[in-house]
């Protein structure tokens, strides 16, 4: 058993004021000047901590207010109100919601997983990942206690092509040609960012973090600045220029490169392999309705890793797009049917916004995930996408201190890792590789709804 994997966390405060959901609005007019103002009774000392005169009119968007409403209810003249913060509502979009963004901020800042009291307050289900639940075990099946430390749960995954069997010579030596495989301790690699402000320091943050986690960050060939060259062991180099432009010594040092799918891809891979047989190649392709055929074809032709990319919202590339989890199910099951599944590593990306999405996509058939936008959110990104238009980043991510950036991303990954352990522990699963494709250990909204509700209300 490998040593227990633990991600080091260190609280890394925000550089900018956090945008919180609600604020307190207080009026002065009509104030009775009570001997003891209700503001003095604040359990969280919201008013005191801001050194405000309790009698002043104020409009505060403090992150310290915890919405207990005591001041609202106790002010004799009802001069204190709570209000929704418009800046909070405006964060992100329908998919990258303010709730998701602030949840990721919290993890990046603290390295802790979000814990709260009271039951779940969200919708019953939702589109995409919210239309499934994961299983748990009780009485008839044991769980595993992965978090509070007593039982080992492995989140390691292998990247590369695997053999279905080994051939041995008469002397007991392996005569099969064993392809290179790299084991990473979490089923996550860092994807290309869909957009970002000038990325030199961002890339440095990503790579430093990837190195400390033991995983990889994907960097464009065109962004490979000299300062990044010492990290080649933790970079997945995405080939976006002529491969010939790459220094041959890099091809020797790199462990993984990523090449967009094209008609000559297998020939290109063969050429690279002839030069460096230990280099693993990821074939990157868009997720679309013919992806399952292409994946099958490439797997038959010897592909090692295939990276399937949905868009930022987890949708495939088509007019009536399906969600990534449905697409991955189809691809996974198709490979299973053809008896090819275990040969190839499938990496999925697009729309992975929370720790649970990681577990759910693995259940739907991905071996590992490539994440992108959450990496920016860890560095305080507000998903305003202004950088796409060339407008300056409101939280100046382009000028982050890479050590801070790496710590924030590390904190987020620690949170995700621990949450993955929670989900697997509840299921009694001891290795994340066993979670892959285990659709029987999940519950799907569409199936349950039909099974349970379709027949209700029928007389007789």
């Amino acid at each position, binding site marked *: 058993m490998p040593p227990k994997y633990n991600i080091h966390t260190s609280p890394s405060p925000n550089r900018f004021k956090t945008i919180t*959901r*609600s604020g307190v609005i207080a009026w002065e007019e009509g104030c009775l000047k009570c001997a003891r103002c209700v503001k003095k009774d604040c*359990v969280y000392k919201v008013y005191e901590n801001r050194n405000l005169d309790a009698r002043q009119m104020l409009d505060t968007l403090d992150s310290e207010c*915890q*919405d*207990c*409403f*005591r001041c609202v*209810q*106790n*002010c004799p003249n*009802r001069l204190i*109100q*709570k*209000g*929704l913060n418009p800046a909070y509502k405006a964060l992100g979009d329908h998919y990258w919601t303010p709730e998701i963004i602030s*949840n990721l901020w919290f993890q990046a800042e603290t390295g802790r*997983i*979000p*814990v*709260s*009291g*009271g*039951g*779940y*307050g*969200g*919708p*019953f289900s939702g589109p995409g990942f919210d239309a499934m*639940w*994961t299983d*748990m*075990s*009780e*009485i*008839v*099946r*044991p769980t595993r*206690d992965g*978090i*509070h430390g*007593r039982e080992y749960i492995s989140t390691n995954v292998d990247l590369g092509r695997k053999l279905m069997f080994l051939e041995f010579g008469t002397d007991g030596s392996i005569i099969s040609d064993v392809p290179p495989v790299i084991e990473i301790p979490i089923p996550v690699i860092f994807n290309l960012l869909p957009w970002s402000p000038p990325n030199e320091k961002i890339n440095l943050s990503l790579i430093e973090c990837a190195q400390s986690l033991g995983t990889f960050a994907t960097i464009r060939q065109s962004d490979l600045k000299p300062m990044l060259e010492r990290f080649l062991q933790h970079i997945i180099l995405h080939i976006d220029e002529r491969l010939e432009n790459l220094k041959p010594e890099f091809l020797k040092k790199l462990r993984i490169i990523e090449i967009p799918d094209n008609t000559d891809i297998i020939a290109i891979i063969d050429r690279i392999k002839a030069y460096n047989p230990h280099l693993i190649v990821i074939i990157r392709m868009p997720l679309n309705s013919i992806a399952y055929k292409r994946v099958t074809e490439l797997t038959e032709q010897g592909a090692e890793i295939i990276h399937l990319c949905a868009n930022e919202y987890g949708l495939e590339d088509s007019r009536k797009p399906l969600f990534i989890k449905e697409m991955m199910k189809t691809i996974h099951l198709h490979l299973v049917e053809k008896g090819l599944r275990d040969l190839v590593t499938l990496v999925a990306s697009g729309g992975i916004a929370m*720790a*649970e999405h990681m577990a*759910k996509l693995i259940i739907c058939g991905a071996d590992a995930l490539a994440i992108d936008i959450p990496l920016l959110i860890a560095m305080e990104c507000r998903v305003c996408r202004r950088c796409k238009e060339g407008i300056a980043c409101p939280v100046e991510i382009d000028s982050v201190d890479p050590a801070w950036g790496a710590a924030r991303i590390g904190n987020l990954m620690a949170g995700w890792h621990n*949450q993955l352990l*929670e*989900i697997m*522990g*509840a299921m009694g699963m001891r290795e994340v590789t066993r979670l892959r494709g285990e659709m*029987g*250990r999940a*519950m799907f909204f569409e199936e*349950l*709804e039909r099974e*349970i*509700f*379709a027949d*209700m*209300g029928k007389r007789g």
Partner: protein
Amino acid sequence: MESEQRKFNFPDVIRTPSRFRHTLGKYRIVINKSCNNCGLCVKLCPYGVYTKGVKRPRVVCEHLCTGLSCSKNSYYCVAKCPERAISLTINPSFEILGDKRWTADLLASTWHMAETGEAPYQDLNYKTGDSNGGFDKIRFVFPKKGTTRGSHKDSDIRQKDVTVADEEISTEIELNRSGDTRPKITIPVPFYLGGMSFGSVSIITMLSRVRAAVAMGTFCCTGEGGYPDELTEYDDHIITQVATGLFGVREETIKRVRIVEFKYAQGAKPGLGGHLLGDKVTPRVAHMREAVEGSALFSPFPFHSVYSVEDHKKHVDWIKQTNPNALVSVKVSTPTDVDMVTVGSYYAGAHIVQLDGSYGGTGAAPDIAKKNIAMPIEYALPKVHKFLIAEGIRDRITIIASGGIRTAYDMAKAIAMGADGVCLGTADLVALECIRCHHCESGRGCARGIATTDDELTGLMELEWGTQRIVNMYTAWRLQLIDILKRLGIKSVKELVGRFDVIAHLDYIKAGEIEGELD
């Protein structure tokens, strides 16, 4: 049995307003400076929104205002005010309140029921939340009133229209249906109150719930945190819990109660043990749990002595041996094979199986678990009910549903979907003016003095007040349940169990298939 139920004296409703100066309501009323203090509004308002003031009337009970819908009334103060000094708007703070499951409307209606013992008359949805699924999309199909009266053959429909006195409707259920030699326990309402440990909530909260359970003739569970001495006088109405941490479990407490509950799992955090953060482990909590003050307590998961139904039977036998008169309840969460777990529990000798759905409450749990692990109770119930019928044992076991039951309507729907009764927790806390801020777990605990062990905060609530608020709310629930049963033409809540024909899901209703009024 029914005659016995009629003898049960349900407690009186005593009006119990908010502990805070103002109750949060949907509307905000402001009287401006042009008021000449004529006092007309005070006189006009039948709901008691205003009282006389020195300079101008004071708005004391905003939450009792019926809001903009009042404009059709002759006593609409905004229109009648000679100086046009009254403004009525939606309360901006109301927008911040609540969440998809417990909407601001549901919170305000629960507070109203806890104050008055009646369903709200204001413009508040007290039946469903905004979660867009499950109970919130399920409706009762009530026979249409009057449509078939006097016309052809439909004698049964006509019968349903006959007014039945409330007293003739039975809301009692039986907790021991196994047919064994242990005592029968009948409770006059189809619910009991779920486990909340001392430590996760204050002693005042705990006692308020227990005393309300006593008043309603039902039970309240201790949760996993020991059995404080203050509860001793209520032994007959207490369910004591044996959970995975075995905190506070003692032979003598098991011996003195009528029901013992095994907590295998909790819906809010299936697959995870109980979790009490260090700040809440005060000297008294630590003493009760035989733990160290200030250090966080994690119950293990699962019971490491139970990895099979056979192991589980050993557990049940242990309790049965320790207390030869106790009923055994088994609280489980809702995995894919929840039906098998239930059947297993039955064969291991459980009298009650409590299915705790994934959207239930908790003192502290990882958000990822609350949202994603295990299935909602709305799926688990019909699955289990149908499986037990196929197994031929449905009438030998009592199924209690919990985890996301917020209203009398949820309760009735859960029963129609296959439960015998329900178990409640969060609703009690809301009656005690919980605002669902979700900060029960942090620092000194609940700022409103409910889920805390801090002395000062605990002091925000009085025992009499707490007890009566919960009693009032459940009185209102019971009346609503009776109303539902009457409208369905059913005389006993026992006959509502598994009546999938009287409920429908909005997504699956096809025109022409449903006859009746959806509510």
